[in-house]
């Protein structure tokens, strides 16, 4: 047993206090929005210049001038605002956002993040807002599979892929566990139901403290 993607999104949502301003990255992190408890008031930020982003519109109601960072149509919640790109990234850079949740290729035990480029020679590089987000929020969470498709740990002593940011990740949420990372290395916060510490440690490329 391990967390499904939906259960994992719900687990991340648990760690986002009411009142937070949050940026959810493209892909898996976007689904965290579906699991914010109804009792919580969370303001979602979108890099293209929105605070107070709401859910996807009903079919037929799409307006492609109102999109999220993944270029999918969204709506606004009451209280929302628009602003230009430099203000939007200023909000990140200056630490005005409370939490951002990002996907990753690799996270090091010190909290280094690699999520923009595999380093493959023929790959077309694209960075978007990844580096700005990684270092910008008060807390950066990573949400990812614990291991790659071939079974290699995505939590590593040192990232082998080009870095997105240095020492920027606070917590890693995977299908197997929640781990803290940082200057003191990786430390267990919580195991997914039915996952033993030994099983998780066996699939992790660094020593996990407990």
């Amino acid at each position, binding site marked *: 047993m391990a967390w499904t993607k939906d259960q994992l999104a719900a687990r991340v949502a648990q760690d986002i206090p009411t009142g937070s301003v949050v940026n959810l990255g493209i892909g898996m992190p976007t689904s965290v929005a579906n699991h914010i408890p109804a009792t919580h008031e969370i303001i979602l930020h979108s890099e*293209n210049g929105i605070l107070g982003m709401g859910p996807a519109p009903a079919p037929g109601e799409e307006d492609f001038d109102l999109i999220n960072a993944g270029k999918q149509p969204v709506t606004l919640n009451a209280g929302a605002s628009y602003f230009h790109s*430099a203000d939007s990234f200023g909000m990140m850079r200056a630490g005005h956002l409370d939490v951002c949740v990002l996907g990753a290729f690799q996270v090091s035990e010190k909290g280094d993040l690699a999520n923009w480029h595999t380093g493959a020679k023929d790959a077309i590089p694209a960075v978007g807002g990844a580096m700005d987000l990684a270092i910008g929020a008060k807390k950066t969470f990573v949400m990812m599979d614990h291991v790659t498709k071939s079974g290699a740990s995505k939590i590593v002593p040192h990232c082998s892929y080009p870095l997105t940011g240095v020492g920027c990740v606070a917590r890693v949420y995977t299908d197997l566990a929640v781990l803290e990372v940082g200057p003191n290395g990786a430390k267990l916060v919580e195991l997914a139901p039915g996952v033993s510490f030994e099983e998780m440690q066996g699939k992790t490329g660094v020593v996990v403290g407990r």
Partner: protein
Amino acid sequence: MINKILPTLRDAVADIKDGATVMIGGFGGAGMPNELVDALREHGAKNLTIVNNNAGNGDFGLALLIKEKRVRKIICSFPRQADSHHFDAAYRSGELELELVPQGNLSERIRAAGVGVAGFYVRTTFGTPLAEGKEIREFNGVPFVLQEPIHADFALIKADKGDRWGNLVYRKAARNFGPVMAMAAKCTVATVHEIVELGALDPEAVITPGIFVKRIVQIPYVPTPGMKSKV
């Protein structure tokens, strides 16, 4: 009488010379001034340096400008998209130079050009390949990376409403890069869906003051087409 309104898109881009640096607004499809980009393509300028968040998609606008080998260099944050095949081909062939800039650095470097700032330092990119060759300086023990402004000869942007002084308001999240690009270029050209009388725009709500805009052209409102999502 100050009147920045021009009758046609062609007039608005007629003096863009070969080798010019041209900023193009937009994030994905929202705010992409495709009508002005088409006019630029028909006008024929080549050897261009383009500044845009992306690098064209599909078979229209900026993607066609790249396909027709009119772009020498592109400065952008996210060129790779599901349908960026014209960029992909030009980049892989080595004909198109790419300066990849994180989106926050891109927007702030553009803003810096617009407000007379010669350089500034950010933490973003420290320790990554995108900081290579750039000056690193510590402030209070934290390393920052020097960023320099991006100036342009022209900015092509899409707004919603404007007046003959060049005051602009935008439509929803199509605002994105428009306001900062308008500030950074020697000559900013904006399309609007509606031209209103002076005084009709609420001064409290004007987003781009007319000082930053040299030319305005009215175009019909066409809903922004959807895009394939990021790959």
